[in-house]
């Protein structure tokens, strides 16, 4: 990912605000991969991810005038916020299609719980971790995304997803356990390389 320098980014935003397509394209080129990763952590299905990424960018460019540049990282954070909101919209829509209050009681595979063994992730490639997260069941994935990546509290997650705080906490706990187990397995298999 090419990172923009501070001044570049500020002027790019200004140009994009005034409708400059080239500036928009540059912003897209810089952040599309990053947002693609963010969106697919919420929606691993390729077609869904594409739709939500497209909607996110349209929203980003059409509401740029509401964005105030507040230094390095502010554009990235704001764009990410938009993408997360769009992803959540899709998830909520999907839930309301299922149409029942219990649809957030996701499947809970049997795992040896309480494995406090938290593996070191330093050497595990990002792509591997990304794939592991994408493979998590919907509920676990959504909660771990909001908790670990978006740094939401269980209270916030509960209100965002329409679940209880304790559900959020238990989903997170299980998600972490699955991830830890898979990372450990991965490390065992690739022991020599890591």
């Amino acid at each position: 990912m090419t990172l923009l320098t501070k001044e570049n980014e500020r002027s790019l935003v200004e140009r994009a605000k005034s409708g400059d397509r080239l500036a928009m394209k540059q912003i897209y080129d810089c952040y599309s991969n990053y947002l693609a990763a963010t969106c697919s952590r919420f929606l691993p299905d390729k077609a869904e991810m594409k739709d939500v990424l497209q909607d996110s960018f349209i929203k980003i460019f059409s509401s740029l005038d509401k964005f105030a540049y507040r230094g390095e990282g502010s554009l990235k954070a704001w764009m990410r916020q938009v993408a997360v909101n769009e992803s959540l919209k899709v998830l909520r829509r999907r839930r309301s299609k299922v149409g029942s209050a219990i649809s957030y009681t996701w499947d809970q595979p049997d795992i040896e719980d309480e494995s406090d063994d938290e593996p070191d992730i330093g050497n595990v490639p990002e792509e591997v971790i990304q794939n592991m997260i994408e493979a998590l069941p919907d509920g676990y994935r959504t909660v771990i995304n909001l908790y670990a990546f978006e740094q939401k509290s269980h209270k916030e997650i509960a209100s965002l997803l329409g679940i209880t705080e304790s559900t959020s906490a238990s989903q997170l706990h299980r998600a972490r356990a699955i991830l830890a187990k898979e990372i450990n397995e991965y490390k065992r298999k690739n022991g020599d390389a890591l």
Partner: protein
Amino acid sequence: MNEDWFGKLRDKMEDYGKSAPEGLWDEIEASLPKKRQVVSLSWVWKSVAIAAALVIGVFATVRIGHRHNAPAAIVAQAEKETTDVSKATAKQETAEVVSVAEDSQAKKLLLASVQKHQRGMKEETIIPQDIPSSSSAEETSAERKEDLSEQKLDDSESGDEDKAEEEEARRTEEFLRKAEAEDRAVKRTAHPVSVGLSIGSGATESNSSGVFNTMMFDAGKSPYSGNKIDGIATRAVTKDVARENIYDDASHKRPVRMGIMVNYPLSKVFGIESGINYSMLNSTFTTTSSRTETEDSQKLHYIGIPVNVTANILNTRYFRIYAMAGGMGEKCVSGRVTTSVRDEKAGNVRTSKKDLDVEGLEWSINAAGGLQFNITDFVGIYAEPGVSYHFDSNSSVNTIYTDRQFDFAFNFGIRFSLNKRR
């Protein structure tokens, strides 16, 4: 639970990117509203222009003050100009009205042919078509897309709103019928008494034409009487035969400004004044594709602060006739768009509403003639027909200010005079 571990996970993935789907940019670009390319004047230049207008106003008033017969001369010249304008444009106006009528006719014919075509197609999928590159066309279509997607969300989220939607759809249909009737009414009112001025919109990519009907000059008719100041219908009609019928139509209602002004007489002849103005800008944008007709009804409320120089032409106990010139800064304080999408095939109308932010300030310079009725020595009510020029703002929202920068304006309100008039 170890928070640290989540932190490490977050840091690890912080800069991770995954290739975005190929060709996505093209799709995004196609859906983006096309911004008008604006050449923004700096604040300095705007200030200079307003100052220049003030200076011109002052000089004009000084000249009026020096020449006793000036009022008559000015009125005569104004009359001459008006006559010239009407002479020069009367023909053109007729032509415009006819062409608009023809367009409507053509639209009907095309609609009919499309309907026939659609009947023939039946199961065939309709491929979404690009709107030709007329700026407002793209904008509306993009907005419509957004609205539609929001609509989808709404649909799934709130089934119990169906009733309300039906009611809204019914009202929209009523509104559409009414709008059509009004449209016809406007055409009928293009009688010889009205003064017409036609200005080409200057769009290069579409067969656009502008029709101005300044109904406010209709004899014996107060411009603010009735429920519409339906002065202006600017039409940017885009036709692309190869793509069946794609129309775009932007119609702006004449803004009428209400104001409370305080006038400070500098001499017997001229004075300086300021105050507060309220304007409502009402626009309707229509986009017709082979399948849907989208109408965006846009209402914007502006509060403005004008600074004017006024020059008395006649000042009696009861009446005051004057000329004025000045500048104004305006801010949109509230805005709303109601979008209704009429689906020809499904035969329904969906409506949605959203708030609209218009950022920045609108700057304009104005000149007008005014008539004031003095209620007391200090308070009077005024009516001011005139002209105004709006500078480009960086706003992406299309309004009469952006589409018709040079325009007729009609102000009325209450004026307080700080010095005793006589």
